[in-house]
């Protein structure tokens, strides 16, 4: 797909995220990974149908960015566009964190951080045992890397030489109380993954060309799992969110601001 077409889809995904967050939190977390999800679903992953056994698998381990996933699934045609209205709605199916039973295309329930990588490793192990060519992509947040279970899974995937699992980290630098830097310096991330036996690449998580190129090349090394540290801006696309990423970790979009945000997204496309 042309990169301009991909950027158009990413724009539509961001517009969906803004529209969906009239209530609820985590709008800025969904915005930061919109380009990554678009690159994966519309360029990198082989996935024509969520039921195709040969499809590439995706796990949104940072489940709080659910709105981005729902939007992408709707643009893929796996769920209806109108179903997005059910996000966070009373009695609706699209919960704040993805539930496996809620919609086709959601491989696994997530929401509690630090779960996705081990599940992805288990899928990848079976893919290899059954000699299947598909890959498993696991998207994590950078704050999520503070969960010890991530590193249990990282050690395990490397020791099993699972090169069909690809981790992507949305490095937006922010977490619940402030900047990640206080807990886990972003500079050390690649070193940590390499020390655990992974091949790590650092890229700009909003550069569609770079995202597609790098994701397409994974696995980078035979016999080693790959991780892509995608540097992103939390709230990317809306200046007010970018300026106050911590606040927009919690705010919902007031109805008076929706039109302005949508117009800004169009302008900055």
């Amino acid at each position, binding site marked *: 797909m042309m990169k301009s077409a991909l950027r158009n889809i990413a724009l539509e995904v961001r517009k969906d995220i803004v529209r969906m967050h009239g209530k609820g939190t985590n709008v800025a977390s969904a915005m930061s990974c919109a380009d990554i999800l678009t690159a994966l679903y519309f360029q990198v992953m082989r996935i024509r149908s969520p039921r195709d056994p040969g499809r590439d698998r995706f796990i949104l381990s940072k489940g709080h960015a659910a709105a981005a996933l729902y939007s992408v699934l709707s643009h893929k045609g796996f769920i209806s566009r109108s179903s997005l209205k059910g996000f966070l709605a009373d009695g609706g199916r699209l919960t704040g964190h993805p539930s496996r039973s809620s919609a086709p295309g959601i491989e*696994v329930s997530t929401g509690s951080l630090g779960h996705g990588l*081990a599940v992805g490793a288990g*899928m990848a192990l079976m893919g290899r045992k059954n000699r299947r060519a598909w890959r498993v992509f696991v998207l994590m947040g950078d704050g999520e890397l503070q969960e010890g279970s991530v590193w*249990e899974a990282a050690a395990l995937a490397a020791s099993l030489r699972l090169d069909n699992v690809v981790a992507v980290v949305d490095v937006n630098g922010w977490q619940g109380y402030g900047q990640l830097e206080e807990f886990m310096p972003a500079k050390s991330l690649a070193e940590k993954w390499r020390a655990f036996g992974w091949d790590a690449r650092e890229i700009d998580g909003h550069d569609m060309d770079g995202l597609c190129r790098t994701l397409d090349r994974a696995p980078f090394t035979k016999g080693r799992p790959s991780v892509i540290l995608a540097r992103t801006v939390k709230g990317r696309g809306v200046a007010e969110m970018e300026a106050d990423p911590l606040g927009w970790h919690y705010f919902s979009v007031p109805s008076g601001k929706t039109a302005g945000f949508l117009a800004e997204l169009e302008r900055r496309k």
Partner: protein
Amino acid sequence: MRKAVLDTLVSLVKRDLRVFFLTSDTGFHVFDEFRVKYRNQFANIGISEAAMIGMAAGMTLEGARVFVYGIAPFVTMRCFEQVRVDLCQNKLPVKIIGVGGGLTYGGAGPTHHSIEDVSVMAALPGMTVICPGDPAEAAAAVAASMKMTGPCYIRIGKSGERAVHGKPLRGFAIGRGIRVRRGRDIAVIATGNALAPADEACDLLEKRGIKAELASMHTVKPLDSGLVESLAKRFDTIVTVEEHNIVGGMGSMVAALITDRGSTVRLHRIALPDTYEARGGSDSYLRLRHGLTPDRLAERIAGIYGRKGKAR
């Protein structure tokens, strides 16, 4: 029980290439032959229970039928949230085998005792909890777990448990307790490690002229409500016996059930006190200390029966 479980697993992996066995670095030597002979279906995940449960979930999503194995407190409570989210919320039929239920790892101390596992696992929606009472029940439970559509926890002892059921078990069904012996004076419901000592206690009671009926409640969740109700109808008193914290174990579930049904049967729960064990010592010492040996159980049950007599 461990040997019975292992033999059953061997027959399962032989028959079905989709069956996998994962251990978190537990069972050295026990699985020596297994891991060589069936190496494609065996993996030592290392000392990482959380990763093991997550892996098992991922493998199951891709069509595998996975057993995970570890020391009971670690394979349930160390990775509790992985069990909750990855297995229960995804509704995946992973089978967790916990070795060393209750006080089995006596001398190892309270980190290795498993006195809360039944309660903790039973609190999870969709989780089935099975505590086999002898090797035959353990083998039957493992075989029966293959037909399950959701996750289950099988809590076994370790080695050397006495066979309670003489013949090979026929008609074992998850969720259906087994009447081990018929009685007329008092009903005893036992589960897991407590079944064999309870059975011996019934022998001792018989010598004293008390005929106790004994049921094995191998499945703690879902509890066999029909069995409890029929005992509640036929007897004045039910005694539950288990090697688990008195809070939240099988006895608690029986209590809840008879209360819900409005039964007036008298219930006595024999279990471990709500405390971590302060004393060292072997499993047999600790069982004696907590009144869970056949002699002590017989005395306690006779006491309960006697009190009932006086009340009349």
